Protein backbone atom coordinates (compact mmCIF):
# COMPACT_ATOMS: atom_id res chain seq x y z
CA UNK A 1 0.00 0.00 0.00
CA UNK A 2 1.57 3.28 -1.09
CA UNK A 3 1.98 6.14 1.36
CA UNK A 4 -0.37 9.07 0.63
CA UNK A 5 0.05 12.72 1.31
CA UNK A 6 -2.22 15.72 0.78
CA UNK A 7 -1.52 17.57 -2.45
CA UNK A 8 -4.53 19.85 -2.70
CA UNK A 9 -6.64 21.48 0.01
CA UNK A 10 -7.91 24.75 1.32
CA UNK A 11 -5.39 27.58 0.82
CA UNK A 12 -3.87 28.95 4.01
CA UNK A 13 -5.02 32.49 3.36
CA UNK A 14 -8.67 31.48 3.68
CA UNK A 15 -10.27 31.63 7.10
CA UNK A 16 -11.12 28.26 8.66
CA UNK A 17 -14.77 29.21 8.97
CA UNK A 18 -16.59 32.26 7.64
CA UNK A 19 -18.23 34.65 10.05
CA UNK A 20 -21.26 35.38 7.99
CA UNK A 21 -24.94 35.17 8.88
CA UNK A 22 -24.68 32.75 11.78
CA UNK A 23 -24.76 29.17 10.63
CA UNK A 24 -23.48 29.45 7.05
CA UNK A 25 -19.93 29.34 8.30
CA UNK A 26 -18.76 26.39 6.19
CA UNK A 27 -19.74 27.58 2.74
CA UNK A 28 -19.16 30.66 0.64
CA UNK A 29 -22.23 32.73 -0.23
CA UNK A 30 -21.89 31.93 -3.93
CA UNK A 31 -24.47 29.91 -5.83
CA UNK A 32 -23.58 26.30 -6.71
CA UNK A 33 -21.22 26.30 -9.68
CA UNK A 34 -20.35 30.01 -9.46
CA UNK A 35 -17.07 31.08 -11.02
CA UNK A 36 -16.19 33.47 -8.22
CA UNK A 37 -15.37 30.57 -5.90
CA UNK A 38 -12.87 29.16 -8.38
CA UNK A 39 -11.29 32.56 -9.09
CA UNK A 40 -10.97 33.11 -5.35
CA UNK A 41 -9.24 29.77 -4.91
CA UNK A 42 -6.78 30.51 -7.71
CA UNK A 43 -5.97 33.89 -6.17
CA UNK A 44 -5.58 32.31 -2.73
CA UNK A 45 -3.12 29.78 -4.12
CA UNK A 46 -1.10 32.52 -5.79
CA UNK A 47 -0.92 34.43 -2.49
CA UNK A 48 0.16 31.30 -0.61
CA UNK A 49 2.70 30.26 -3.24
CA UNK A 50 4.29 33.72 -3.34
CA UNK A 51 4.34 33.91 0.47
CA UNK A 52 2.85 37.40 0.52
CA UNK A 53 -0.20 36.90 2.72
CA UNK A 54 0.95 39.43 5.33
CA UNK A 55 1.42 42.08 2.65
CA UNK A 56 -1.80 41.63 0.69
CA UNK A 57 -4.60 44.19 0.77
CA UNK A 58 -7.63 42.91 -1.08
CA UNK A 59 -10.04 45.50 -2.44
CA UNK A 60 -13.50 44.03 -2.84
CA UNK A 61 -16.16 45.61 -5.02
CA UNK A 62 -19.91 45.94 -5.10
CA UNK A 63 -21.46 42.87 -6.67
CA UNK A 64 -21.57 39.17 -5.83
CA UNK A 65 -17.90 39.20 -4.87
CA UNK A 66 -18.46 41.95 -2.28
CA UNK A 67 -17.87 39.52 0.58
CA UNK A 68 -14.25 38.61 -0.15
CA UNK A 69 -13.36 39.89 3.28
CA UNK A 70 -15.36 37.08 4.87
CA UNK A 71 -13.08 34.55 3.22
CA UNK A 72 -9.59 35.97 2.86
CA UNK A 73 -7.49 36.32 5.98
CA UNK A 74 -5.53 39.28 4.56
CA UNK A 75 -5.95 43.05 4.72
CA UNK A 76 -9.36 43.92 3.29
CA UNK A 77 -11.05 47.07 2.09
CA UNK A 78 -14.51 47.09 0.53
CA UNK A 79 -15.23 50.07 -1.66
CA UNK A 80 -17.97 51.95 -3.48
CA UNK A 81 -19.30 50.63 -6.78
CA UNK A 82 -16.66 50.69 -9.50
CA UNK A 83 -14.02 52.47 -7.45
CA UNK A 84 -11.75 49.55 -6.61
CA UNK A 85 -8.85 50.62 -8.88
CA UNK A 86 -9.01 54.17 -7.50
CA UNK A 87 -8.92 53.00 -3.90
CA UNK A 88 -6.27 50.44 -4.76
CA UNK A 89 -4.20 53.27 -6.23
CA UNK A 90 -4.40 55.17 -2.96
CA UNK A 91 -3.62 52.10 -0.86
CA UNK A 92 -0.61 51.21 -2.95
CA UNK A 93 0.76 54.74 -2.93
CA UNK A 94 0.22 55.12 0.82
CA UNK A 95 1.63 51.66 1.57
CA UNK A 96 4.13 50.88 -1.18
CA UNK A 97 5.26 47.66 0.49
CA UNK A 98 1.82 46.11 0.37
CA UNK A 99 0.51 43.98 -2.49
CA UNK A 100 -2.79 45.54 -3.49
CA UNK A 101 -5.19 43.33 -5.42
CA UNK A 102 -8.59 44.51 -6.56
CA UNK A 103 -11.34 42.11 -7.53
CA UNK A 104 -14.32 43.29 -9.57
CA UNK A 105 -17.14 41.94 -11.66
CA UNK A 106 -18.10 43.22 -15.09
CA UNK A 107 -20.95 45.45 -13.90
CA UNK A 108 -18.57 47.03 -11.44
CA UNK A 109 -15.45 47.30 -13.59
CA UNK A 110 -16.78 47.69 -17.12
CA UNK A 111 -19.82 49.89 -16.48
CA UNK A 112 -19.85 52.23 -13.50
CA UNK A 113 -16.14 51.78 -12.90
CA UNK A 114 -14.94 52.02 -16.50
CA UNK A 115 -13.25 55.34 -15.84
CA UNK A 116 -11.39 54.13 -12.77
CA UNK A 117 -9.98 51.01 -14.42
CA UNK A 118 -9.05 52.84 -17.62
CA UNK A 119 -7.09 55.54 -15.82
CA UNK A 120 -5.50 53.25 -13.23
CA UNK A 121 -4.26 51.12 -16.13
CA UNK A 122 -3.18 54.14 -18.14
CA UNK A 123 -1.24 55.51 -15.17
CA UNK A 124 0.41 52.13 -14.85
CA UNK A 125 -0.47 51.85 -11.19
CA UNK A 126 1.44 49.17 -9.39
CA UNK A 127 -1.67 47.16 -8.62
CA UNK A 128 -3.20 43.87 -9.72
CA UNK A 129 -6.79 43.76 -10.91
CA UNK A 130 -8.84 40.60 -11.22
CA UNK A 131 -11.85 41.08 -13.43
CA UNK A 132 -14.55 38.40 -13.26
CA UNK A 133 -16.55 38.71 -16.46
CA UNK A 134 -19.80 36.76 -16.54
CA UNK A 135 -21.43 39.11 -19.06
CA UNK A 136 -24.36 39.98 -16.81
CA UNK A 137 -25.33 41.85 -13.64
CA UNK A 138 -25.62 38.89 -11.27
CA UNK A 139 -26.30 40.26 -7.81
CA UNK A 140 -29.03 42.63 -8.96
CA UNK A 141 -30.90 39.95 -10.85
CA UNK A 142 -29.71 39.79 -14.43
CA UNK A 143 -29.64 43.16 -16.14
CA UNK A 144 -27.59 43.73 -19.29
CA UNK A 145 -23.95 44.58 -18.63
CA UNK A 146 -21.63 46.27 -21.16
CA UNK A 147 -20.12 42.81 -21.60
CA UNK A 148 -23.40 41.00 -22.35
CA UNK A 149 -23.23 39.02 -25.60
CA UNK A 150 -25.28 40.15 -28.59
CA UNK A 151 -28.68 38.53 -28.71
CA UNK A 152 -28.66 37.55 -25.04
CA UNK A 153 -31.97 38.07 -23.25
CA UNK A 154 -31.66 39.88 -19.93
CA UNK A 155 -34.20 41.67 -17.76
CA UNK A 156 -33.29 44.93 -19.50
CA UNK A 157 -32.99 43.43 -22.99
CA UNK A 158 -36.02 41.13 -23.02
CA UNK A 159 -35.77 40.67 -26.79
CA UNK A 160 -32.03 40.10 -26.71
CA UNK A 161 -29.12 42.55 -26.78
CA UNK A 162 -29.36 44.54 -29.98
CA UNK A 163 -26.18 46.02 -31.42
CA UNK A 164 -28.04 49.08 -32.73
CA UNK A 165 -29.83 49.92 -29.50
CA UNK A 166 -27.48 48.47 -26.90
CA UNK A 167 -24.07 48.51 -28.54
CA UNK A 168 -21.50 45.77 -28.68
CA UNK A 169 -19.91 43.65 -25.94
CA UNK A 170 -17.08 45.65 -24.36
CA UNK A 171 -13.68 44.01 -24.74
CA UNK A 172 -11.96 45.34 -21.65
CA UNK A 173 -8.72 43.38 -21.96
CA UNK A 174 -8.25 44.47 -25.57
CA UNK A 175 -8.96 48.11 -24.67
CA UNK A 176 -6.53 48.09 -21.75
CA UNK A 177 -3.81 46.27 -23.65
CA UNK A 178 -3.92 49.02 -26.28
CA UNK A 179 -2.49 51.37 -23.64
CA UNK A 180 1.22 51.81 -23.18
CA UNK A 181 1.48 51.43 -19.41
CA UNK A 182 -0.01 48.02 -18.53
CA UNK A 183 2.63 45.34 -18.08
CA UNK A 184 0.50 42.22 -18.01
CA UNK A 185 -3.03 41.78 -19.36
CA UNK A 186 -4.50 38.36 -20.02
CA UNK A 187 -7.96 36.94 -20.59
CA UNK A 188 -8.57 33.51 -19.14
CA UNK A 189 -11.68 31.38 -18.67
CA UNK A 190 -13.18 28.90 -16.24
CA UNK A 191 -14.77 26.72 -18.91
CA UNK A 192 -12.70 23.58 -18.50
CA UNK A 193 -9.97 22.06 -16.36
CA UNK A 194 -7.39 23.14 -18.91
CA UNK A 195 -8.70 26.71 -18.90
CA UNK A 196 -8.82 26.80 -15.09
CA UNK A 197 -5.20 25.70 -14.83
CA UNK A 198 -4.21 28.35 -17.39
CA UNK A 199 -6.13 30.90 -15.30
CA UNK A 200 -4.16 29.85 -12.25
CA UNK A 201 -0.89 30.53 -14.03
CA UNK A 202 -2.08 33.92 -15.32
CA UNK A 203 -3.32 35.07 -11.91
CA UNK A 204 -0.07 34.09 -10.29
CA UNK A 205 1.89 35.91 -12.97
CA UNK A 206 -0.25 39.03 -12.56
CA UNK A 207 0.36 39.11 -8.83
CA UNK A 208 4.05 38.41 -9.38
CA UNK A 209 4.19 41.39 -11.75
CA UNK A 210 3.28 43.58 -8.81
CA UNK A 211 5.56 41.77 -6.35
CA UNK A 212 8.45 42.48 -8.72
CA UNK A 213 7.35 46.10 -8.93
CA UNK A 214 6.98 45.98 -12.72
CA UNK A 215 3.62 47.73 -13.11
CA UNK A 216 -0.08 47.34 -13.75
CA UNK A 217 -1.50 43.87 -14.27
CA UNK A 218 -5.00 42.62 -15.00
CA UNK A 219 -6.54 39.22 -15.53
CA UNK A 220 -10.00 39.03 -17.06
CA UNK A 221 -11.67 35.80 -16.03
CA UNK A 222 -14.59 34.55 -18.15
CA UNK A 223 -16.74 33.17 -15.43
CA UNK A 224 -20.00 31.18 -15.29
CA UNK A 225 -23.16 32.51 -13.64
CA UNK A 226 -25.45 29.45 -13.66
CA UNK A 227 -28.23 31.10 -11.64
CA UNK A 228 -28.78 34.15 -13.81
CA UNK A 229 -28.00 32.35 -17.03
CA UNK A 230 -30.63 29.79 -15.98
CA UNK A 231 -28.30 26.90 -16.71
CA UNK A 232 -27.00 24.11 -14.54
CA UNK A 233 -23.35 24.46 -13.50
CA UNK A 234 -22.09 22.00 -16.10
CA UNK A 235 -24.02 23.73 -18.92
CA UNK A 236 -22.80 27.10 -17.72
CA UNK A 237 -19.21 25.91 -17.83
CA UNK A 238 -19.78 24.73 -21.38
CA UNK A 239 -21.27 28.11 -22.28
CA UNK A 240 -18.11 29.82 -21.04
CA UNK A 241 -15.93 27.43 -23.01
CA UNK A 242 -17.86 27.42 -26.26
CA UNK A 243 -19.88 30.62 -26.55
CA UNK A 244 -18.24 33.29 -24.40
CA UNK A 245 -14.73 32.36 -25.45
CA UNK A 246 -15.77 32.85 -29.07
CA UNK A 247 -16.75 36.47 -28.44
CA UNK A 248 -13.98 37.07 -25.93
CA UNK A 249 -10.82 35.37 -27.21
CA UNK A 250 -8.94 33.69 -24.40
CA UNK A 251 -5.30 34.66 -24.70
CA UNK A 252 -2.58 36.89 -23.39
CA UNK A 253 -3.18 40.46 -24.55
CA UNK A 254 0.01 42.06 -23.40
CA UNK A 255 3.06 40.83 -21.55
CA UNK A 256 5.87 43.30 -20.98
CA UNK A 257 7.19 41.51 -17.91
CA UNK A 258 10.42 40.58 -19.69
CA UNK A 259 11.29 44.16 -20.58
CA UNK A 260 9.57 46.28 -17.92
CA UNK A 261 11.83 48.03 -15.45
CA UNK A 262 10.81 47.85 -11.77
CA UNK A 263 9.25 51.08 -10.55
CA UNK A 264 11.62 53.08 -8.36
CA UNK A 265 10.71 53.03 -4.68
CA UNK A 266 8.67 56.14 -3.80
CA UNK A 267 10.26 58.76 -1.59
CA UNK A 268 9.32 58.21 2.05
CA UNK A 269 6.49 60.41 3.29
CA UNK A 270 7.67 63.41 5.31
CA UNK A 271 7.49 63.27 9.08
CA UNK A 272 4.22 64.67 10.45
CA UNK A 273 6.15 67.31 12.38
CA UNK A 274 7.56 68.56 9.10
CA UNK A 275 4.17 69.30 7.57
CA UNK A 276 3.65 72.83 9.00
CA UNK A 277 7.02 73.85 7.57
CA UNK A 278 6.29 72.31 4.16
CA UNK A 279 2.83 73.88 4.04
CA UNK A 280 4.19 77.16 5.45
CA UNK A 281 1.68 77.07 8.28
CA UNK A 282 2.20 79.29 11.33
CA UNK A 283 3.80 77.28 14.13
CA UNK A 284 1.15 78.18 16.67
CA UNK A 285 -1.59 80.76 16.54
CA UNK A 286 -1.39 83.45 19.22
CA UNK A 287 -4.43 83.81 21.43
CA UNK A 288 -7.16 85.92 19.90
CA UNK A 289 -7.65 89.49 20.99
CA UNK A 290 -11.26 89.97 19.91
CA UNK A 291 -13.78 90.97 22.58
CA UNK A 292 -15.00 88.15 24.77
CA UNK A 293 -18.48 87.98 23.28
CA UNK A 294 -16.96 87.46 19.85
CA UNK A 295 -14.62 84.72 21.08
CA UNK A 296 -17.01 82.50 22.93
CA UNK A 297 -20.30 82.76 21.10
CA UNK A 298 -19.22 83.81 17.66
CA UNK A 299 -21.54 82.81 14.84
CA UNK A 300 -20.73 85.23 12.03
CA UNK A 301 -22.37 84.58 8.65
CA UNK A 302 -20.73 86.63 5.94
CA UNK A 303 -21.84 86.99 2.36
CA UNK A 304 -19.50 88.68 -0.08
CA UNK A 305 -20.85 89.51 -3.52
CA UNK A 306 -19.61 91.38 -6.57
CA UNK A 307 -18.31 91.02 -10.09
CA UNK A 308 -15.95 88.22 -10.98
CA UNK A 309 -12.43 89.64 -10.83
CA UNK A 310 -13.05 91.88 -7.82
CA UNK A 311 -11.43 89.35 -5.53
CA UNK A 312 -14.64 88.22 -3.89
CA UNK A 313 -13.52 84.63 -3.48
CA UNK A 314 -10.04 85.51 -2.26
CA UNK A 315 -11.49 87.86 0.34
CA UNK A 316 -13.68 85.06 1.66
CA UNK A 317 -10.83 82.62 1.57
CA UNK A 318 -8.63 84.98 3.59
CA UNK A 319 -11.32 85.33 6.24
CA UNK A 320 -11.76 81.56 6.46
CA UNK A 321 -8.01 80.86 6.51
CA UNK A 322 -7.39 83.42 9.22
CA UNK A 323 -10.37 82.13 11.18
CA UNK A 324 -8.97 78.63 10.98
CA UNK A 325 -5.57 79.84 12.19
CA UNK A 326 -7.36 81.54 15.06
CA UNK A 327 -8.90 78.26 16.14
CA UNK A 328 -12.42 79.04 14.93
CA UNK A 329 -14.75 76.69 13.08
CA UNK A 330 -14.95 78.01 9.53
CA UNK A 331 -16.49 77.35 6.14
CA UNK A 332 -15.97 78.98 2.75
CA UNK A 333 -18.41 78.32 -0.05
CA UNK A 334 -17.71 79.94 -3.39
CA UNK A 335 -20.40 80.40 -5.98
CA UNK A 336 -19.58 81.78 -9.38
CA UNK A 337 -20.50 81.66 -13.01
CA UNK A 338 -18.35 80.19 -15.73
CA UNK A 339 -16.62 83.50 -16.44
CA UNK A 340 -13.26 84.24 -14.88
CA UNK A 341 -13.93 87.99 -15.24
CA UNK A 342 -17.02 90.16 -15.20
CA UNK A 343 -19.58 87.50 -14.29
CA UNK A 344 -21.34 87.62 -10.96
CA UNK A 345 -19.54 86.05 -8.09
CA UNK A 346 -20.28 85.53 -4.45
CA UNK A 347 -19.09 83.51 -1.53
CA UNK A 348 -20.42 82.44 1.82
CA UNK A 349 -18.13 82.48 4.85
CA UNK A 350 -18.95 81.29 8.32
CA UNK A 351 -16.76 81.96 11.33
CA UNK A 352 -18.02 80.33 14.50
CA UNK A 353 -16.90 79.10 17.87
CA UNK A 354 -19.04 75.97 17.49
CA UNK A 355 -18.99 73.50 14.58
CA UNK A 356 -20.57 74.92 11.43
CA UNK A 357 -23.79 73.10 10.55
CA UNK A 358 -23.99 74.31 6.97
CA UNK A 359 -21.62 76.30 4.79
CA UNK A 360 -24.59 77.98 3.15
CA UNK A 361 -25.36 81.53 4.32
CA UNK A 362 -29.02 82.30 3.77
CA UNK A 363 -29.40 84.91 6.54
CA UNK A 364 -26.24 86.98 6.68
CA UNK A 365 -24.97 88.94 9.66
CA UNK A 366 -22.47 90.73 7.41
CA UNK A 367 -23.05 91.58 3.75
CA UNK A 368 -20.21 92.92 1.65
CA UNK A 369 -21.71 94.21 -1.58
CA UNK A 370 -19.07 95.27 -4.07
CA UNK A 371 -21.58 96.52 -6.65
CA UNK A 372 -25.13 97.75 -6.75
CA UNK A 373 -26.77 94.61 -8.17
CA UNK A 374 -25.29 92.61 -5.30
CA UNK A 375 -26.65 95.08 -2.77
CA UNK A 376 -30.11 94.93 -4.37
CA UNK A 377 -30.04 91.17 -4.46
CA UNK A 378 -28.81 90.38 -0.97
CA UNK A 379 -29.78 93.34 1.26
CA UNK A 380 -33.09 91.74 2.17
CA UNK A 381 -31.50 88.66 3.69
CA UNK A 382 -29.30 90.58 6.15
CA UNK A 383 -30.31 89.89 9.75
CA UNK A 384 -31.66 92.88 11.67
CA UNK A 385 -28.75 94.50 13.50
CA UNK A 386 -26.32 93.25 10.87
CA UNK A 387 -23.58 95.10 9.02
CA UNK A 388 -23.53 96.05 5.37
CA UNK A 389 -20.38 97.32 3.63
CA UNK A 390 -20.99 98.74 0.17
CA UNK A 391 -18.48 99.72 -2.47
CA UNK A 392 -19.42 103.28 -3.41
CA UNK A 393 -19.52 106.85 -2.20
CA UNK A 394 -22.93 106.46 -0.63
CA UNK A 395 -25.66 103.87 -0.18
CA UNK A 396 -28.19 104.19 -3.03
CA UNK A 397 -31.41 105.72 -1.75
CA UNK A 398 -33.58 102.82 -2.81
CA UNK A 399 -31.41 100.31 -0.94
CA UNK A 400 -31.44 101.58 2.59
CA UNK A 401 -32.53 99.78 5.73
CA UNK A 402 -32.92 101.32 9.16
CA UNK A 403 -32.48 98.11 11.14
CA UNK A 404 -28.95 97.36 9.88
CA UNK A 405 -25.70 99.31 10.01
CA UNK A 406 -24.75 100.35 6.48
CA UNK A 407 -21.48 101.96 5.45
CA UNK A 408 -20.38 102.96 1.97
CA UNK A 409 -16.71 103.35 1.07
CA UNK A 410 -15.07 103.53 -2.36
CA UNK A 411 -12.82 100.53 -1.66
CA UNK A 412 -11.42 100.20 -5.15
CA UNK A 413 -10.60 103.88 -5.44
CA UNK A 414 -8.77 103.68 -2.12
CA UNK A 415 -6.86 100.69 -3.43
CA UNK A 416 -5.99 102.58 -6.59
CA UNK A 417 -4.28 105.15 -4.41
CA UNK A 418 -1.96 102.53 -2.87
CA UNK A 419 -0.95 101.29 -6.30
CA UNK A 420 -3.63 99.14 -7.85
CA UNK A 421 -7.40 98.90 -7.79
CA UNK A 422 -6.98 95.13 -7.76
CA UNK A 423 -6.26 95.31 -4.03
CA UNK A 424 -9.77 96.66 -3.37
CA UNK A 425 -10.82 93.39 -1.77
CA UNK A 426 -8.06 93.75 0.82
CA UNK A 427 -9.18 97.32 1.56
CA UNK A 428 -12.58 95.76 2.28
CA UNK A 429 -10.93 93.25 4.59
CA UNK A 430 -9.17 96.02 6.53
CA UNK A 431 -12.41 98.00 6.79
CA UNK A 432 -14.40 94.97 7.93
CA UNK A 433 -11.91 94.02 10.64
CA UNK A 434 -11.79 97.62 11.83
CA UNK A 435 -15.57 97.76 12.06
CA UNK A 436 -15.82 94.32 13.58
CA UNK A 437 -12.73 92.86 15.33
CA UNK A 438 -13.53 89.29 14.35
CA UNK A 439 -9.91 88.25 14.03
CA UNK A 440 -6.60 89.48 15.47
CA UNK A 441 -4.63 91.61 13.00
CA UNK A 442 -1.43 89.54 13.26
CA UNK A 443 -3.28 86.32 12.46
CA UNK A 444 -4.93 87.87 9.43
CA UNK A 445 -1.54 89.13 8.30
CA UNK A 446 -0.03 85.66 8.57
CA UNK A 447 -2.88 84.08 6.66
CA UNK A 448 -2.46 86.75 3.99
CA UNK A 449 1.27 86.05 3.76
CA UNK A 450 0.45 82.41 3.13
CA UNK A 451 -2.41 82.85 0.68
CA UNK A 452 -1.16 85.81 -1.36
CA UNK A 453 1.48 84.74 -3.85
CA UNK A 454 4.50 86.97 -4.31
CA UNK A 455 6.26 89.53 -2.15
CA UNK A 456 5.23 92.45 -4.33
CA UNK A 457 1.55 91.69 -3.94
CA UNK A 458 1.89 91.05 -0.24
CA UNK A 459 3.40 94.49 0.21
CA UNK A 460 0.58 96.15 -1.73
CA UNK A 461 -2.01 94.13 0.17
CA UNK A 462 -0.55 95.14 3.54
CA UNK A 463 -0.83 98.78 2.54
CA UNK A 464 -4.35 98.21 1.27
CA UNK A 465 -5.32 96.54 4.54
CA UNK A 466 -4.01 99.48 6.52
CA UNK A 467 -5.81 102.00 4.30
CA UNK A 468 -9.02 100.04 4.72
CA UNK A 469 -8.71 100.21 8.49
CA UNK A 470 -8.01 103.93 8.38
CA UNK A 471 -10.90 104.59 6.01
CA UNK A 472 -13.33 102.74 8.21
CA UNK A 473 -12.00 104.32 11.35
CA UNK A 474 -12.61 107.73 9.83
CA UNK A 475 -16.27 107.08 9.08
CA UNK A 476 -17.30 105.11 12.08
CA UNK A 477 -16.20 104.40 15.60
CA UNK A 478 -19.39 103.00 17.04
CA UNK A 479 -20.04 100.23 14.56
CA UNK A 480 -18.59 97.52 16.77
CA UNK A 481 -21.06 97.78 19.60
CA UNK A 482 -23.92 98.17 17.16
CA UNK A 483 -23.31 94.95 15.30
CA UNK A 484 -21.74 92.64 17.85
CA UNK A 485 -25.14 91.32 18.76
CA UNK A 486 -25.74 90.26 15.17
CA UNK A 487 -22.67 88.05 15.01
CA UNK A 488 -23.08 86.13 18.24
CA UNK A 489 -25.05 82.91 18.26
CA UNK A 490 -28.75 82.85 18.98
CA UNK A 491 -28.14 80.66 22.02
CA UNK A 492 -25.98 83.40 23.49
CA UNK A 493 -28.88 85.80 23.12
CA UNK A 494 -31.00 83.45 25.17
CA UNK A 495 -28.42 83.24 27.91
CA UNK A 496 -27.97 87.00 28.03
Amino acid at each position, binding site marked *: *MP*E*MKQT*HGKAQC*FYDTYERKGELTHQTHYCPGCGHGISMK*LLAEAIDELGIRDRVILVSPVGCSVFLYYYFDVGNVQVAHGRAPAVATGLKRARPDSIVISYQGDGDLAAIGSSEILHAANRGELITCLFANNAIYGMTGGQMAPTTLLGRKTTTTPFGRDKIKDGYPLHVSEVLSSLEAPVFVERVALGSTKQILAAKRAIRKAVETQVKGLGFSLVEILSPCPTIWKQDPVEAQKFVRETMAEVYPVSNKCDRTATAEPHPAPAPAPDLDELPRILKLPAAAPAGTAPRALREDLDCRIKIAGFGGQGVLLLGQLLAEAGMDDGLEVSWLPSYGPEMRSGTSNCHVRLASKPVDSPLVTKSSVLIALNEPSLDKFLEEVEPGGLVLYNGDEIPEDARRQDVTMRALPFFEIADEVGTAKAGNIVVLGALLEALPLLPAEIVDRAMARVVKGEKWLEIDRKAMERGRQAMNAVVSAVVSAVVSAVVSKEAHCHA
Partner: protein
Amino acid sequence: MPVTAMREDRGFIEINAQECKGCGLCVEACVQKVLHLSPHLNHYGYHPAEYDGRGCNGCGVCFYACPEPGAIRVFKAVA
Protein backbone atom coordinates in the same frame (compact mmCIF):
# COMPACT_ATOMS: atom_id res chain seq x y z
CA MET B 1 1.04 13.80 8.08
CA PRO B 2 1.15 10.90 5.61
CA VAL B 3 -2.02 8.85 5.51
CA THR B 4 -2.16 5.25 4.45
CA ALA B 5 -4.72 4.43 1.76
CA MET B 6 -7.04 1.48 1.89
CA ARG B 7 -6.27 0.21 -1.63
CA GLU B 8 -3.61 0.11 -4.26
CA ASP B 9 -4.78 3.39 -5.81
CA ARG B 10 -2.45 6.25 -6.55
CA GLY B 11 -4.62 8.69 -4.68
CA PHE B 12 -7.88 9.41 -2.97
CA ILE B 13 -9.99 12.41 -2.07
CA GLU B 14 -12.00 13.57 0.90
CA ILE B 15 -15.12 15.66 0.39
CA ASN B 16 -16.50 17.85 3.16
CA ALA B 17 -20.20 17.10 2.73
CA GLN B 18 -21.22 20.22 4.67
CA GLU B 19 -19.18 22.52 2.43
CA CYS B 20 -20.32 20.94 -0.85
CA LYS B 21 -23.23 22.55 -2.73
CA GLY B 22 -23.75 19.69 -5.15
CA CYS B 23 -22.96 21.69 -8.29
CA GLY B 24 -21.51 18.59 -9.92
CA LEU B 25 -18.53 20.30 -11.54
CA CYS B 26 -16.12 17.88 -9.89
CA VAL B 27 -18.16 14.90 -11.09
CA GLU B 28 -17.99 16.33 -14.62
CA ALA B 29 -14.27 17.13 -14.39
CA CYS B 30 -13.08 13.86 -12.87
CA VAL B 31 -10.91 12.08 -15.43
CA GLN B 32 -11.25 8.68 -13.78
CA LYS B 33 -15.03 9.09 -13.39
CA VAL B 34 -14.93 8.02 -9.74
CA LEU B 35 -17.20 10.77 -8.29
CA HIS B 36 -20.98 10.92 -8.03
CA LEU B 37 -23.61 13.01 -6.28
CA SER B 38 -24.98 11.48 -3.11
CA PRO B 39 -28.65 10.46 -3.07
CA HIS B 40 -28.78 12.01 0.41
CA LEU B 41 -29.09 15.69 1.28
CA ASN B 42 -26.57 17.51 3.44
CA HIS B 43 -27.39 19.95 6.23
CA TYR B 44 -27.91 22.79 3.75
CA GLY B 45 -30.17 20.79 1.45
CA TYR B 46 -27.73 19.86 -1.32
CA HIS B 47 -26.81 16.45 -2.70
CA PRO B 48 -23.07 16.53 -1.97
CA ALA B 49 -20.47 14.91 -4.18
CA GLU B 50 -19.09 11.57 -3.04
CA TYR B 51 -16.02 9.57 -3.95
CA ASP B 52 -16.80 6.07 -5.25
CA GLY B 53 -14.08 4.82 -2.94
CA ARG B 54 -11.75 3.45 -5.56
CA GLY B 55 -10.00 4.41 -8.76
CA CYS B 56 -8.69 7.91 -7.83
CA ASN B 57 -5.26 8.77 -9.19
CA GLY B 58 -4.85 11.95 -7.14
CA CYS B 59 -4.67 14.22 -10.19
CA GLY B 60 -6.33 17.17 -8.38
CA VAL B 61 -8.60 18.19 -11.26
CA CYS B 62 -11.69 17.95 -9.04
CA PHE B 63 -10.08 20.37 -6.59
CA TYR B 64 -9.74 23.08 -9.24
CA ALA B 65 -13.21 22.40 -10.65
CA CYS B 66 -14.75 22.93 -7.22
CA PRO B 67 -15.83 26.51 -6.41
CA GLU B 68 -15.65 25.99 -2.65
CA PRO B 69 -12.34 26.78 -0.96
CA GLY B 70 -12.04 23.65 1.16
CA ALA B 71 -14.71 21.16 0.12
CA ILE B 72 -12.22 18.79 -1.51
CA ARG B 73 -8.89 17.55 -0.24
CA VAL B 74 -6.74 15.49 -2.60
CA PHE B 75 -4.18 12.95 -1.47
CA LYS B 76 -1.63 11.37 -3.72
CA ALA B 77 0.77 8.48 -3.44
CA VAL B 78 4.26 9.56 -2.49
CA ALA B 79 6.50 8.74 -5.44
